[in-house]
């Protein structure tokens, strides 16, 4: 029945067709089912023609004559009388079509060796329809209908320029600016293919529909077709290096302040440790494939929109970027992908590409989210009663074991203990002795909580708060043929988790407030000329307690921009505090101490440690520092397509200028502080004293460190060539580049420059055999002339066996690509030192001198300052060189549902700058002045595996991506003097290996103690309950010769993650689990010790685990040595040892998000809203299997900040994205 209707339709159509068209149909009917693909080649035919002011019809005929290719058309169907001119040489037919016919509304299709021309309007099309009348058979069911529809992106915006083609057919259309298309199709089995460069292609069987609305997904991430690589893009299919991409949606969804924080877990081979949880200082140290050098920089190179970031500021711009600006991130890991960056490539490269305009009407996208942070882990202090018991025990050990009575003043009496236990300042007996009080007053006092015998957990008191954060972003994206534009405005604000830090109008909390803008334009300035302009700004405003001046007074904080250091002051207060210290605020009075004399009844615990500086009072009175930071970045890129010389040729040039300015100001408001005691007459009342207040002081730091200005200038110019010849495709690139980083306070007063050449040649045959050669040739002024430029080649090849004819087509293994690469890269950031090649330096008139003269001592003789030799130079100093071998495999399995990428690598790093420890002392040059030489060698090997499973269960779509990466590095040579015992040698051990004593339980019995080895670190002083160490060399002395490798390095060797994505109707859900293994955290003395200075803090885990004879007798677990007072590194228990090395293994639910996209209801359309999505997201949500959390430390915290850890936070946000 259907067929009959179709037939009628055809007949009706046929009535409209002229005789000429019928004739035309007969011409190509014989070839209708011939091989279509083959016939595409006819449009590649070239011809030359010279025609002035002729009718199009005439011109077509001339072309037909010149090319011997048949053009079929009907005069009536085209505006054949239009007058045109066309003078060309060696032009292709397709160019003729594109240049002349299509602008005049004439479209084409190819039928075997004929080109059939028709006009756009459907009813006038002359194609195929005619044939159906003639070919009346069933199997040659003609395209009898038109399918129309709209192509939208994921956010519901129409996409212009999507090619819609019939699979295995000839019809095609391109979507207009409203995303509309219309295409003639055959039967219901016809498959339409929707493809566009930026999107993942979609195939759709049309079935019965005549209207198709298609949504395309942006093609970035694992499934993308096009990957951004060094100085360009490449198809994923032809990639031979080890490259992974990070989905920007994963980065955007992470509610963190710094991009670097969001990368962890999202790319195999990329790992890191977080510095701090403080707003504005929460960035993560990123490593690609671990650490391969023991002396040079370990930072990867960051490239933003093709512009290399200065090595001195590698993460500055990236960490302040708004994630909404980012289109894609690519991690380049092996030498073939990084070699073009030459001497800055050895640690890997991260390429960040920002979003650009798209053809189409402007799309406004607004996102906003709000959330809260809290500490993910907090150290927990012991309560006053436990504290008092433990300190008494510690004092008693000194008395009994060492005859040391010097701590006896710290002993708590039984009454003290009762008061701690009952949170009272007076025992009932003491109260009843106060006969001046009425019974009511006595009862009140008996029920009055302690003011002296208090118990406060200072970590919780300070860091137990909730910080708020908010983020807004507005982007506009659109474009015409001439100008495409993308503009983003962003604002981010994050508060901290400190609490109790507000007084009056002063909030001393840390905050980060950041505004971002970015405008990217692509302008078709002239024919073949594209100018791209990027302008971006980052405006950071950090603030926090503690001024530069205060910091100095409190212990060596000399740099207010170094917030980690500034926070040490505050945390030091906590380490030195105890739970019964005076509170920070009583009745609105900020308390600085007790009014009563220490030891008196008004300050009963004064000599026992109650009067330390209260951390919160210190924060409140320490003033506030503000850092204003502005970073402006501007780039212009011009690209000139030179197809007129030869097809596929273009030249381009880029100029970039970044400018960064930082200003520090501080203010110290005068805040009244008080001392207090309980009223001597009626202790129910509290008397306050003090409260003096003066004026606020302001300071701006003029010292260079605190008003830094750095700027960077970058230039490049290059030639690109990309062309296919049948099955052969080649690309080539030659590019010169130069950049200069300047900071006015450089010791040498010279900017840091780098320049070089980049070359690349790639070849592939049918995307089956792939070859690539990359080379970087570049140099820096850090090395002597003649040693400056280095040549860094890399070779790689790939093979796709599944494309071979012999490979059986099957649904289980659909794609295999094998990859291998070898290459060399460099690292010019050697130990942060510059110009080591300069000749030996001397210190003139600034060394210890002498007093010559004949004075008799009544006054010194005249002083003559001394001079001596300084650092020696090494004229041949040069960069580190890395040789990287990489093997990889890409697989798609089980109907493409499972894709796997695996890489193994080995990097041998040599030329590492090292001071020759082996050089004899007779050289007479002190260690620090011996010229470093490039002799260090390391090796680093490992693997990365990433697997993604994508499928759906009915309407529930899901994907799972699992990643594992591993690396292990070993120092092969570092010119180390061979130690008497191998375990003492750094050589042969992993980079970053900890060395220390190996613990062996505790001294539990007097016999064990009597038979102990002499501990040279504690002058032999050891008592029961101290840690026992292994005497590795058996000489009866615990000393440096027993320091051996302990545990793993801080950065774990294994990192793994699992990303889950689900979508069901409008709901989407994603979760990221990550974890690490084979890493350790060293618990520094500041955390591990107790009773610092006699009064300092005790943690709950220390109290719970402390060694006691009872626990030994009862075989209870013991995890802390016997208590001692004022622990330092000289104490037997706190020498660097594996006892304090704790695994930082963990599994986390790192991030989870659930969102809902509203359907496009009429109401939304009326409001011109094309999409609304709401979501909630949690970051750093749950942690499992993490031993370090016992100590209140998040296992992703780096341990390089000593004992000063600003807790890493957990955050929850909810947000909305609206598109107009």
């Amino acid at each position, binding site marked *: 029945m259907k067929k009959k209707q179709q037939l009628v339709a055809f007949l009706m159509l046929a009535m409209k067709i002229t005789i000429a068209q019928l004739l035309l149909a007969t011409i190509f009917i014989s070839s209708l089912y011939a091989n279509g693909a083959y016939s595409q080649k006819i449009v590649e035919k070239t011809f030359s023609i010279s025609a002035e002011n002729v009718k199009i019809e005439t011109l077509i005929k001339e072309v037909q004559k010149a090319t011997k290719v048949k053009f079929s058309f009907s005069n009536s169907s085209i505006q054949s009388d239009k007058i045109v001119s066309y003078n060309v040489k060696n032009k292709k037919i397709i160019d003729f079509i594109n240049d002349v016919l299509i602008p005049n509304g004439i479209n084409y299709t190819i039928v075997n060796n004929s080109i059939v021309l028709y006009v756009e309007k459907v009813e006038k099309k002359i194609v195929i329809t005619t044939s159906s009348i003639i070919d009346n058979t069933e199997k040659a069911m003609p395209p009898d209908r038109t399918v129309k529809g709209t192509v939208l992106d994921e956010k519901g915006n129409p996409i212009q320029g999507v090619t819609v083609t019939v699979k295995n057919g000839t019809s095609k259309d391109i979507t207009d600016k409203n995303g509309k298309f219309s295409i003639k199709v055959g039967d219901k089995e016809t498959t339409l293919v929707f493809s566009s460069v930026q999107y993942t292609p979609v195939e759709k069987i049309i079935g019965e529909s005549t209207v198709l609305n298609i949504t395309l997904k942006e093609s970035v991430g694992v499934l993308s077709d096009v990957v951004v690589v060094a100085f360009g893009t490449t198809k994923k299919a032809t990639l031979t290096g080890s490259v992974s991409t990070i989905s920007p949606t994963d980065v955007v969804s992470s509610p963190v302040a710094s991009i670097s924080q969001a990368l962890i877990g999202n790319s195999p081979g990329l790992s890191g440790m977080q510095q701090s949880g403080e707003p504005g200082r929460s960035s993560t140290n990123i490593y690609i494939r671990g650490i391969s050098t023991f002396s040079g920089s370990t930072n990867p190179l960051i490239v933003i929109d093709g512009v290399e970031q200065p090595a001195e500021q590698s993460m500055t711009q990236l960490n302040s970027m708004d994630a909404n600006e980012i289109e894609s991130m690519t991690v380049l890991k092996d030498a073939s992908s990084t070699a073009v960056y030459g001497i800055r490539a050895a640690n890997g490269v991260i390429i960040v590409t920002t979003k650009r305009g798209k053809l189409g009407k402007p799309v406004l996208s607004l996102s906003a989210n709000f959330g809260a942070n809290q500490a993910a882990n907090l150290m927990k202090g012991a309560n006053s009663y436990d504290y008092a018991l433990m300190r008494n025990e510690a004092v008693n050990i000194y008395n009994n074991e060492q005859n040391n009575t010097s701590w006896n003043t710290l002993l708590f009496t039984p009454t003290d203990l009762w008061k701690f236990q009952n949170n009272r300042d007076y025992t009932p007996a003491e109260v009843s002795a106060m006969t001046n009080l009425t019974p009511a007053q006595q009862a009140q006092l008996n029920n009055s909580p302690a003011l002296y015998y208090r118990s406060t957990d200072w970590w919780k008191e300070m860091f137990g708060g909730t910080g708020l954060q908010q983020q807004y972003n507005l982007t506009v994206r659109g474009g015409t043929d001439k100008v495409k534009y993308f503009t983003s405005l962003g604002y981010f604000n994050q508060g901290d988790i400190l609490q109790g830090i507000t007084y009056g109008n002063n909030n001393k909390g840390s905050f980060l407030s950041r505004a971002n803008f970015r405008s990217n334009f692509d302008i078709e300035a002239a024919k073949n000329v594209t100018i791209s302009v990027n302008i971006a700004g980052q405006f950071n405003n950090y603030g926090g307690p503690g001024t530069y001046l205060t910091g100095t007074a409190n212990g060596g904080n000399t740099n207010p921009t170094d917030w980690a250091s500034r926070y040490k002051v505050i945390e030091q207060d906590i380490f030195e505090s105890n739970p019964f210290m005076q509170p920070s605020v009583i009745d609105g009075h900020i308390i600085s101490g007790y009014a009563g004399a220490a030891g008196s009844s008004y300050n009963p615990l004064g000599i026992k440690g109650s009067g330390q500086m209260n951390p919160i009072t210190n924060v409140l009175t320490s003033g506030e520092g503000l850092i204003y930071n502005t970073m402006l970045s501007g780039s212009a890129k011009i690209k000139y397509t030179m197809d007129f010389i030869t097809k596929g040729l273009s030249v381009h040039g880029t100029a970039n200028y970044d400018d960064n300015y930082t200003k520090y100001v501080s203010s110290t408001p005068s805040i009244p502080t008080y001392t207090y005691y309980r009223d001597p007459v009626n202790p129910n009342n509290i008397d306050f004293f003090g409260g003096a207040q003066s004026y606020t002081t302001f300071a701006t730091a003029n010292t260079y460190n605190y008003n830094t200005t750095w700027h960077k200038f970058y230039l490049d*110019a290059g*030639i690109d060539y990309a062309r296919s010849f049948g099955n052969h495709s080649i690309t080539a690139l*030659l*590019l010169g580049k*130069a950049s*200069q980083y300047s900071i006015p306070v450089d010791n*040498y*007063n010279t900017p840091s*420059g*780098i*320049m070089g*050449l980049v070359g690349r040649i790639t070849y592939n045959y049918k995307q089956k055999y792939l070859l690539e050669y990359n080379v970087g040739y570049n*140099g820096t002024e850090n090395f002597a002339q003649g040693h*400056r430029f280095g040549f860094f080649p890399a070779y790689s090849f790939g093979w796709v066996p599944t494309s071979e004819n012999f490979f059986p087509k099957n649904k289980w293994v659909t794609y295999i690509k094998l990859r291998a690469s070898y290459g060399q890269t460099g690292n010019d950031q050697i130990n942060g030192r510059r*110009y080591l090649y*300069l*000749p*030996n*330096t*001397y*210190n*003139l*008139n600034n060394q*210890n*001198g*002498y*007093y*010559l*003269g*004949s*004075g*008799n*001592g*009544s006054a*010194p*003789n*005249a*002083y*003559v*300052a*001394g*001079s*001596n*030799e300084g650092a020696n130079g*090494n004229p041949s100093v040069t960069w580190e060189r890395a040789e990287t071998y990489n093997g990889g495999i890409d697989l798609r399995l089980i109907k493409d549902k499972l894709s796997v990428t695996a890489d193994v690598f080995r990097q041998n790093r040599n030329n590492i700058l090292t001071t020759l420890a082996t*050089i*004899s*002392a*007779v*050289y*007479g*040059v*002190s260690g620090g002045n*011996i010229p470093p*030489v490039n002799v260090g060698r390391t090796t680093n090997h490992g693997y990365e595996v990433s697997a993604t499973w994508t499928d759906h269960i009915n309407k529930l779509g899901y994907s799972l991506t699992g990643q594992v990466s591993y690396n292990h590095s070993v120092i092969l040579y570092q010119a180390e*003097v*061979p130690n008497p015992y191998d375990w003492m040698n750094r050589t042969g051990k992993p980079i970053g290996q900890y060395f220390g004593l190996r613990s062996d339980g505790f001294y539990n019995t007097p016999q064990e103690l009597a038979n102990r080895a002499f501990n040279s670190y504690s002058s032999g002083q050891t008592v029961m309950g101290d840690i026992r160490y292994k005497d590795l060399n058996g000489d009866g002395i615990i*000393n*440096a*010769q027993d320091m051996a490798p302990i545990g793993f390095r801080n950065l774990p060797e294994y990192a793994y993650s699992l990303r889950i994505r689900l979508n069901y109707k409008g709901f989407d859900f994603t979760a990221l689990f990550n974890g690490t293994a084979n890493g350790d955290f060293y618990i520094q003395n500041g955390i591990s010790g107790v009773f610092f200075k006699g009064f300092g803090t005790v943690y709950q885990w220390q109290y719970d685990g402390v060694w006691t004879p009872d626990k030994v007798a009862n075989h209870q677990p013991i995890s802390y040595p016997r208590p001692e007072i004022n622990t330092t590194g000289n104490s037997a228990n706190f020498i660097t040892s594996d006892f304090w090395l704790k695994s930082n293994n963990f599994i986390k639910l790192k991030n989870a998000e659930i969102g809902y996209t509203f359907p496009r209801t009429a109401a939304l359309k009326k409001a011109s809203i094309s999409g609304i999505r709401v979501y909630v997201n949690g970051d750093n949500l749950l942690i499992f299997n993490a031993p370090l959390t016992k100590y209140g430390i998040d296992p992703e915290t780096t341990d390089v900040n000593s004992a000063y850890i600003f807790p890493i936070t957990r955050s929850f946000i909810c947000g909305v994205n609206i598109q107009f």
Partner: protein
Amino acid sequence: MKKLMFGLMITFILLGMYACQKTFLQQPNVSGNVSISTIFSNSLNATSELLNAYQWAFGQQYMNQSNTGVCMGGIAGEESRGYSWQFAYTCYATGLNATTTSWVNYGITYQQVRELCIIRENIDQVPDMDAVTKGYVKAECQGMMAQWYMLMFKDFGGVPLVNHSYVATDNMNIPRASLQQTLTFTEKLCDSAIAGLPDSWPASQFGRLTKGAVMALKAQLLIFAARPLFNSSTPYLSMSDPANNNMICFGNTDPKRWDSVVTASNIALAWCKSQGLDVINTGGAGVGKPNPNALNDYGMATSLPGPTNTELILNYQNQNNSVVTSGPGFYYDMSAYWTASRYDNALMGTPYNFLKNYLKADGTEQSWPQLGDQAPRPGSDYVTRFKQMEPRWLADHAGPGCDAANNPGDAKWTAAGWNQTMSNSSLTAVFPQTVAYGNGCGTNTKFYWHAGSRVWPLFPIYRVAELYLNLAEAYNEQGQTALALQNLNVVHNRAGLPSITITDQAALRTAIQREWAVEFYLESKRYFDVKHWKLPTIGTDILMGNRLEFQFLVSSTAAASINLPSNLISYWNAVAYTWLWNPRMMLEPIPQGEVNKLIVVQNPGY
């Protein structure tokens, strides 16, 4: 045309690269950098380099500049051990081992040798220095190198011999030389220096090396070659490879080594007399009689800088008046006791082990409390006996209840004016317990005779008394008792004591050694002397073993009164602490890190 365009573009890029090199790859402006040519571009700069070398060469004698530490007395048994972070304390607490401590810093020594070689090799380039001065500078460099090598000779034995500055690519695998080679090498350096140096310098240059200083140096070098530690057929311990024993022992006992000491000392003494230098003895008592001006004469000889001190051949001229930076006042600040700011030297009293060496003023032995006494003695006994002591004790010490005699009339130097505790004392001290350590049996005040407010100490490197004791020791070993006694008594009588008349060689040897101890208290001699004499009680009394210090029961601990005689109730002798001797300590260890380089071998036992 196409190819041309293509070629042009590539050429453009390459040319651009080349042309822009100067813009992008800059070099620092090194014209202002100080290089070796700057140092030797004028006399002032070169002298500045030389004076830095002086500061090191003679400072090392006096205080260990590379360790947090103080005067050498702590490790020589002349003072208490100091604080736990100080050199003497750590040195012996850890048993003088190769990974942590030794007095002579091997690395710094060679750094100074290098500096001296650089100066000697480059001084000829200095345009504005006359040839005569250049000759002097070269000789000074040789003299200071000899000083360093003598120090290493005494401390390590044979060492690698370096006579020029190396560049990094040179072969620096220089093994240790034998003792004889090191001696010969150092003697030659002395001889060259003596030949090249002047007899005296203009007043403005006073303090620089003279012929006589190096002559005294050579005499000292030779006496260490002659003393029994090296001048022996067998080493104190065998090297792990006995073939290397020649690095720590001459392999024979040769009496001629004493002859050369006599010769060298007599040459030096003759030079001294020709320059008007001699032991200061103003009392006019004549030969063989106690000098009535002993306290002042000895005090002047050991404290007065400049040419007025006619006993001084060379001294360490670091006259930094600061007590809070790094000058000698910082490490050895005796004068500042009366200020409250003395820093690191509070626990440096003289232990009883050393006090025993002093006689009473009448030349007889003092009777001090002994370990094992039945009862403590009254505090007044201490004051009485203190004041009975010989002038050198009084010149060099103050004590609880006892004013410093070397600055009479100056309230700051009285027990009452002293701002620090002078005794190991307590209100509750119980006989015979140990109350504390560090303050010894007296507080040293040496080098500050009539110092007034001078913070820095004069530190003698060579003074004439040394030459007389060299001769006394050498003549006694040669069996020339009369000559030995004659030279010994020059020093002994000057100190206000009656002549020594012992004729037994061994007894006289002991007397001479005792004279060395007392006369050169804190002058950085004893640490090496007692080892090279191989004294039998070195490990039980002199350097190690029980360290004895007086303990005081006092009636007040108030700062102003604790040192007053009226507040001293009783005192007794007690073991302050004990240090263990190891025979390997006769010589110091080469740093383990250096031995690990497999170029030099370690001294035995380490």
